[in-house]
């Protein structure tokens, strides 16, 4: 493949397209509410009308507003059709035909979309995730061409560094710095790993990106591999994501066919392969050292760092490991320039962040917002506030590693440091809104139950500590605990946090500590008086 061929594919694809496209979501959430049949039915209905040459129904990835799915979109009017099913899909046809139709519609300037900014999700819901041509028509792989032919690896790393991009897998480590560490390591072999294990309960950002725009991740990984000098890539994805896995397999096959993966990519002398490794559903396998053990075919348990993967990773070779969303930012940054990217967001947190918005808000689903947006804007404007006039009590971010931010702090900007200062963290992007009926001790116990069950069992504080924390929380909820137990709980949380081996144990107490910090009276009111 050379540049001319790439452009030709793009041109051909654009010419092939019909003037009106009806985008029908075929990502997991809508698929689970039968969007595939809706898509087929609509195509069938269309084929019997004179619109059939001008309108095409296209399966696309996630359009974000999952709570209103199955979701369809008219590519010309940019309007969304909500809750489409086999019974009302004919109304969609009427609407396309310009007749009065009885179906819930949503405009693109709905508050849900207005405050969002799509970089990671730029193609999601617009292109056909099963088609490489569809991706190429949107300018896909052009950036890779430019990187391979017009930039040195160092220049690529410099762009990423200057952009200020930080890892989206949770900890927010500067991506450019990580890349340069791997690039500097001298070794005959290097690896690039994409972390798609996404194990936080309620999080589905990465799944959605992979299901909606898999080639973007491949392109990001290839660029990364060129920058750090790696020859082999792995995507480590959890087995619970069969749709994402099959789309990735398909995408890898297509990219290989076009010579975008394999040897002499774009007729350069750069070779790179990507293979998929499927995880068996252990949360801890998202932790980078455990993940690498798992790829090597060993039991997925973390080991102490240093040495960091950048120095000593897969089979002892330098390994770059980044999250799906991190890789998804690579192409836009190189394409639009680091300066463009670094103007988005706050001083220390650049760009956007994808969140899975859930809980007690009117509109739930997948959102991408610029860093620095306040929690209030997300919850009240994008999410539309609490249904039935309820009041917000807290917002949980960071899943089992994060914490609960009280309603009084809703004006906090969303960035790595602010969230940490509130006892929570960005995490990978789960965001759960809780109303005033929520019992915070129960919330803490819910997450502790998860951490206890997912602890790998290697180190004592996490294995036995999370169990005891859960035990004391249960005692508190059952009103069997004393002030003594409460003190013990606080000490135990500190010990587990400070002494555990990996991030799972180190952050497992956060949901407890943050609810104690902000809602202590909920705990103390449940305590038994000493006997």
């Amino acid at each position, binding site marked *: 493949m050379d540049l001319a061929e790439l452009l030709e594919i793009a041109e051909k694809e654009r010419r092939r397209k019909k003037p009106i496209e009806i985008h029908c979501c075929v990502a997991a959430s809508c698929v689970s509410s039968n969007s595939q049949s809706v898509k087929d039915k609509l195509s069938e209905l269309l084929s019997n009308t004179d619109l059939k040459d001008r309108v095409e129904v296209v399966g696309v990835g996630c359009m974000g507003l999952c709570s209103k799915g199955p979701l369809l979109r008219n590519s010309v009017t940019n309007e969304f059709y909500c809750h489409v099913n086999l019974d009302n899909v004919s109304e969609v046809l009427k609407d396309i035909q310009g007749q009065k139709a009885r179906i819930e519609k949503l405009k693109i300037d709905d508050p849900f979309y207005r405050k969002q900014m799509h970089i990671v999700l730029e193609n999601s819901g617009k292109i056909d995730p099963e088609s490489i041509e569809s991706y190429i028509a949107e300018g896909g792989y052009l950036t890779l061409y430019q990187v391979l032919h017009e930039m040195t690896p160092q220049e690529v790393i410099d762009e990423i560094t200057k952009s200020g991009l930080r890892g989206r897998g949770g900890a927010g480590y500067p991506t450019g710095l990580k890349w340069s560490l791997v690039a500097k390591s001298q070794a005959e072999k290097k690896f690039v790993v994409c972390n798609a294990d996404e194990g936080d309960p309620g999080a589905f950002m990465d799944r959605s990106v992979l299901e909606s725009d898999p080639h973007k991740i491949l392109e990001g990984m290839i660029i990364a591999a060129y920058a750090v000098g790696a020859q082999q890539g792995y995507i480590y994805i959890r087995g619970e994501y069969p749709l994402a896995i099959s789309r990735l397999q398909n995408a890898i096959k297509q990219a290989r066919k076009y010579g975008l993966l394999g040897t002499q990519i774009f007729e350069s002398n750069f070779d790179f392969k990507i293979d998929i490794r499927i995880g068996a559903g252990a949360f801890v396998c998202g932790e980078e050292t455990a993940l690498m053990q798992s790829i090597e075919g060993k*039991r997925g348990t973390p080991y*102490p760092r240093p040495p960091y993967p950048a120095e000593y990773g897969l089979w002892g070779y330098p390994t770059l490991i980044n999250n799906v969303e991190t890789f998804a930012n690579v192409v836009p940054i190189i394409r639009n320039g680091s300066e463009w990217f670094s103007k988005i967001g706050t001083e220390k947190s650049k760009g956007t962040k994808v969140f899975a918005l859930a809980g007690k808000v009117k509109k739930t689903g997948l959102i991408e917002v610029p860093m620095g947006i306040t929690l209030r804007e997300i919850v009240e404007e994008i999410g539309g506030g609490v249904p039935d006039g309820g009041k917000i009590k807290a917002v949980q971010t960071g899943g089992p590693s994060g914490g609960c931010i009280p309603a009084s702090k809703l004006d906090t900007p969303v960035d790595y440091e602010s969230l940490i200062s509130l006892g929570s963290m960005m995490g990978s992007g789960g965001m759960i809104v809780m109303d005033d009926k929520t019992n915070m001790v129960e919330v803490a116990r819910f997450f502790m139950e998860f951490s206890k069950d997912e*602890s790998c069992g290697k180190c*004592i504080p996490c294995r*036995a500590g999370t*169990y005891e924390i859960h035990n004391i929380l249960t005692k508190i909820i059952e009103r069997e605990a004393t002030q003594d137990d409460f003190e013990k709980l606080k*000490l135990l949380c500190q010990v587990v946090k*400070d*002494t555990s081996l990996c991030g799972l144990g180190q952050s497992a107490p956060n949901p407890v500590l943050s609810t104690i910090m902000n809602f202590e009276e909920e705990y103390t009111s449940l305590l038994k008086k000493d006997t």
Partner: protein
Amino acid sequence: MSVKTFSIDGQIISAKEGQTILEAARDAGIFIPTLCHFTGLTNVGACRLCVVEIGNSPKLQPACTTKVIEGMEVKVNTERLKEYRKLILELLFAERNHQCSVCVANGNCELQNLAIKLGIDHVRFEFRYQNYPVDISHELFGIDHNRCILCTRCVRVCDEIEGAHTWDVAFRGANAIVITDMNQPWGESESCTSCGKCVLVCPTGALFKRGVSVAELQKDKSHLEFLIQAKVKKQWIR
């Protein structure tokens, strides 16, 4: 080989390049509690008893896997560390069934000895009393999972010194146990060479020689130490 100078609790110590804090401390006769560490086997940083404070960093680091850096100031005996270590050991005692009075290793157990050394007189957590299996299908040895602390020394000695890799860990979290081969009875293991090294390295009474009774288990490690010395230091003389 260059020498690194650093301090432990204010005392100036010199260490060989590449030595861990634990090795340097032991050379200098300074005590740091450990359970998963066993000289000559890979350090896995699992028990977290050896965590120390370094400089003013609030983060604790395990002494067994942290290499000495020139000028680092290490504290191994602060009140915080003492409290934390006690609590970690108490978590272990509450986790499985360590009734020392009826254990083969009574009086000869690293867990028991450490509890004494750290001044533990009772356990602040509710004992769980989960019934773990005892496997005496092997003709020479047995394993009582009730006494296992999951230090994985047996796993490592079997893999790294004997080369059989009979042992491994199965399941996760509180359900984790050490297993032989593909979780079949030890006596049916095809990879086990019956060398008994696992029994020698086990810090508790979990692995034992069959036929010994309460407080009778003695572990003569000299043969094993010779093998490890031969492997690590390439010295083949006793």
